[in-house]
Structure formats: C-alpha cells, structure tokens
C-alpha cells in the first residue's frame, strides 16, 4: 500500500503517458512552471516541443489542439478554471466533437480537456466555482470525473488514449486528497462505474467529491441502513448496467451530484431510473439548486453545495 495524492496521480499519468507515447503533448497556461501542479516537471523532461505555454487564447489553442490531433498528435489541454470551458464550448462541442461523424469517419480527434480544480474553490465566487460537466454530457462529449487518486490516474490515461475528445473534470475539493493504493496503477476504462461500498438497502450514486460525502454518510448511518455507494466515474457514457443492477438490488436510489439541478447528471440518473429501473421507493437527488451561481461569502458558497445533511435526509426519505 502506498499513499497517492490526487494531484500527483494526474501529474504521474501525464508523465507516464508522455514517456510512453511521443504523440502526447500538453497545451495550457503556465504549464511550463506547472502552476496547477498537473503539469509539474513535464517541461523540464519533455521540453518546448511537447509542453506548450500558451497565451490567454483559449479558443485558438483549443482548436489548435483539434488540428494537431487531426494531424496525428494526442494533445492534452489544461484549463485553469472550469468556466473557461464555456469560452471554448464552440471549439469542443461544435468542432472537435463533430468531426468524426461529419466526415463520415475519415478522422479522429483524440484531444483531452483537463480541468484541475472544477467546482467550488471556497472563496473564488461566481465565475470560478461552476461544475459544468452535465453540459458536456448533453452534447455528447465523453466526460469523466474521477473521485480518487487511482481513478484520476487511470481515467486520465484512458482519456488520453481514447480516439475521441474527452473532458476530464478534477474537482477542486479532491486535489489535496490521498488514497491508499496497492499494486500497479493502470488505465481505468471509460464508462465503467466503481462500487465503493456494498450495501443492501439503498443505492447512493455519487460523483466526484460527493463520493466521499456518501461514504461518510453511509458509515454514519450504518446502524440505520446498509448503503451501497456507486461512483459512475464517467459522466458520459454512463455505465447504466452497474447502476441499474445496484439500484434494483436495493430497490432504492439516491443521487448526490455537485452540479446544478435542472438538466444535470443527477436528473439524468433519476429519469433513466424512472423509465427503466424497478425501484420500491421514489428516487431522490441531492444537487446544487437550479441555475446556481456560487456567492463569495463562504457560508453562502457552502449553503449551495450538496452536503452530508441533505444526503442523510434524502436517504431517510427513500427508506420511509
């Protein structure tokens, strides 16, 4: 067993994959000094030709990655703020994502979009605190949200190796966390969920940092109910089979997801459950409110994020 920090795992994945595959290159702001730690040491090791410090031209460098990918590279593009993905939504959703179908399969666009520090950063306020992965899922971008260091390593590796564009959201709340890992680190396939804890009474589907909230609540409620915690890991495409099997086993479903409620991933799980799963109780979701904008004051920021108390209430409600 060794302690692996989440941020180190992301960095290690890039080191390993760049060493393994010469086509992998990194674009982003302040990647030369590895400001966010994700790119730490890459410039020293791989040089200017593969680690490119970009001016503040997110749109152009995002599509530059598309062009480079079409010409045979496998770029990883780092964004310092989750909302910078809004700035490049056209370049990802309307360009990179669509080339494969529009060309009738003539070309692949293997680009990875990496956001280290998604979600609230406690005190970074309205424009730095969104968690917009559901938008990417809606338009059909492969989207991953690793909850632990080993998943961060393995999913980032798979994202870089994938022939399609993949967005990787690494929640700010997890950056400093550490996982005890045993054995070799390896790729984690996209589209496969991870059952973190087995249980018999309720299935909690939890994403990103909410996985840890769910595990803590499951522990705290152990006397009341046996709770299974499932992390989809990939927001799109979803491992529906694992989620369904768990939900039908327990008959009860609660989702906790740190995104806006309306048209978010949590809602998609409930909708799919309503169509297809056999449940014995109404499902519940714990999310940010509809259309939330995170205010600055910490107490307001926290008031809008899904938390343990809300999850506990929701679990009790489905147990009733």
């Amino acid at each position: 067993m060794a302690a692996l920090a989440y941020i180190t795992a992301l960095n290690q994945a890039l080191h390993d994959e760049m060493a393994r595959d010469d086509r992998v290159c990194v674009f982003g702001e302040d990647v030369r000094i590895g400001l966010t730690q994700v790119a730490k040491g890459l410039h020293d090791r791989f040089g200017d030709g593969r680690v490119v410090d970009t001016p503040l031209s997110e749109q152009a460098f995002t599509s530059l990655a598309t062009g480079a990918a079409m010409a045979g590279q496998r770029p990883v593009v780092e964004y310092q703020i989750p909302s910078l993905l809004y700035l490049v939504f056209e370049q990802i959703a309307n360009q990179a994502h669509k080339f494969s179908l529009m060309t009738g399969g003539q070309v692949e666009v293997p680009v990875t979009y990496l956001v280290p520090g998604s979600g609230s950063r406690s005190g970074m306020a309205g424009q730095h605190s969104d968690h917009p992965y559901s938008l990417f899922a809606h338009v059909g971008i492969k989207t991953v949200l690793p909850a632990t260091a080993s998943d961060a390593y393995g999913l980032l590796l798979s994202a870089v190796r994938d022939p399609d564009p993949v967005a990787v959201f690494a929640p700010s709340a997890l950056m400093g966390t550490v996982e005890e890992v045993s054995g070799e680190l390896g790729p984690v396939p996209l589209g496969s969920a991870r059952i973190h804890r087995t249980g018999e009474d309720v299935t909690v589907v939890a994403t990103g940092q909410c996985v840890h909230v769910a595990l803590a609540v499951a522990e705290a409620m152990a006397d009341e109910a046996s709770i299974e915690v499932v992390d989809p890991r990939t927001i799109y495409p979803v491992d529906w089979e694992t989620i369904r099997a768990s939900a039908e086993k327990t008959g009860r479903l609660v989702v906790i997801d740190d995104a806006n409620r309306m048209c978010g991933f949590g809602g998609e799980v409930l909708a799919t459950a309503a169509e297809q799963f056999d449940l014995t109780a109404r499902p519940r979701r714990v999310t940010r409110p509809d259309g939330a904008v995170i205010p600055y004051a910490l107490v307001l920021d926290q008031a809008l994020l899904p938390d343990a108390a809300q999850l506990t209430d929701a679990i009790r409600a489905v147990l009733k």
Partner: protein
Amino acid sequence: MSAEPRAVRLYRTMRLIREFEERCLAMSLSGEIVGGIHPYIGQEAVAAGICAALTEDDVVTSTHRGHGHVLAKGADPKRMLAELCGTTAGLNRGRGGSMHAADVSLGVYGANGIVGAGAPIAAGAAWSFQRRGDGRVAVAFFGDGALSQGVVLEAFNLAALWQLPVVFVCENNGYATSLPLNRALAGDPVERAAGFGLTARAVDGMDADAVADAAAEAVERCRRGGGPAFLECRTYRFNGHHSFEEQVGLNYRDDAEVGEWRARDPLRTQSTRVDGATAGAIDAEISTLIDEAVEFARAGRAPDPAEALHHLYADGTTPRPGVMI
C-alpha cells in the same frame, strides 16, 4: 499532369470549379441538393492559385463556401457531388454535405459551417508539422467576415508567435452576407494582420497567376521555417451569398458593382493565358467529367437510417436511441 504548364493547370482547376458550381447551383434550385450551397463562382482564381503551391501532404481548412477549395486540393468531383446529394458514395458518406465536405486523405480538413473556425485548426496542423519538422504547410481559407472573429485573431497571434508554417488566406469578396467590409472592419485587412506580426500582403484575387505567385512565395517561406503569412485576395462572388438568394433576391449590392466585377471574370482572364485548342480540350474534358459526376451522384443510394449515428464516436461507442420502450 505536373508536366503541364502552370497556366494550363490553373485553367483546368478553375474551369472545373466553375462548371461544378454552375451545376450545383442548378441542382440546389431544383431541390436535388437539399441544403443549398454557397456558390464559389467568381472566386476560382483564389482556390486554384493557392492550391497550385501545395502538395498532397499539405493541409487546408475551408469554409461554408468550400467547394472550390476542396476541388482545387484534388478531391474527386464525383464523390464531392455525391456528397452534396447525400449518398453513401460521397466523400463523407453523405454525413457532411456542402458545409462539411472533406477529404482527409488529401489534406482537406473540411469545409466548416462556422466562420473562422478553420483558422486555428490549420494552425494546429501546422504546429504538428513544425514539431515533426517534415516541411509540410497548412493553409486556412476564410472570408473577409472572419477578420472580425476572435478565434481567427487569436490564431494570428499564436501562428506569428510560434512561427508556424501556416498561410492565412483571406478571400475578401467585399461582403459578409449583406454586410460590406467598410461597415465590418475598422482599418485594413493587411494592416490588421501585420499588427499581429504576420508577413502580410494583398493580391489580386481575380488573377490566378498573381495568387499562385504569392502563394508559392508564402508557402516556400513556410517550408523553410520562415514563418506564417497572411494573403488578402481581393475577389468577388458573382452570385448570391447562398443559393436561396437566387430565389428570394436580397438587395445589398448594386448591379453596376456586380457588373464591374463580372467584367473581370478570372476564368476568362486565365483562358487568355492558354492556347485556344488546349482550352477547348479542357472545356470538353471538364464538361464530360461533370456530366459523369452528376450521373454518379444521382445513381448513389441514400444512407441507411439505421446507421444515422455511425461514426459519432471513433471507437464505436453506441449512444442510447431517442426512445426506449
């Protein structure tokens, strides 16, 4: 073919584009090409002149008005027209149509429905060429309208900063749909580009020779590692912005202006540089080619609706359908 004099090759390419476009326009108006087209007629000297400086290994990104670029880069007119007719024999297997026609095997990274979107993509291909040091060049075609588009201006900066082997070709036909350039652009295209550190010049876009010379110079500089270029090609579209304009008639250019530019028809200019017999032979050859293309396109079959999501993901990921009972 490369033994032929450049003037002849330019003429052939331009004649091909012209005939192709005239046939497409008719097929758009008759409804055979469903989405209509943005006709390239009048601008042939630009595509022909630029692509004359390129090899098959070089890359181009094109625009909504892309047929000329795709053909000049060497795409098969049969498969191109089949694409516009939405058949499986089309370049994109009927998935792309006029605004996304691509032949990646020839370095055509596609027409593009979003103005300016191709410029940074071309810069990205150029970045890749630079990294590999293989001497290839990328060309981004775009209209005057794209000079106001943020991503294009960002791409200018990155290309100049990193000295990428990319040539930005602005086809200044004076209008972005109905908006004349003087109500769209403060300053001058060449000065704007120069302000980004690009080697920039204007060229007569109605003269294929002039364009080909300028292109050869810019492309060679790129190949030698001499950095990117910007070429403003002053040209004109003889027809409406889109084929629907032939039907509705929008009133934003005056007839005299259209007439003046039509009098400078680049195809006619180029024909004067080729001897009559050669020109006649090319005309006949192209005419047959286009007839065959029309026949080929009409004979194609529509894709199978069950395959509507094929190619959505390169790894074959199958999305859920729209209804699950």
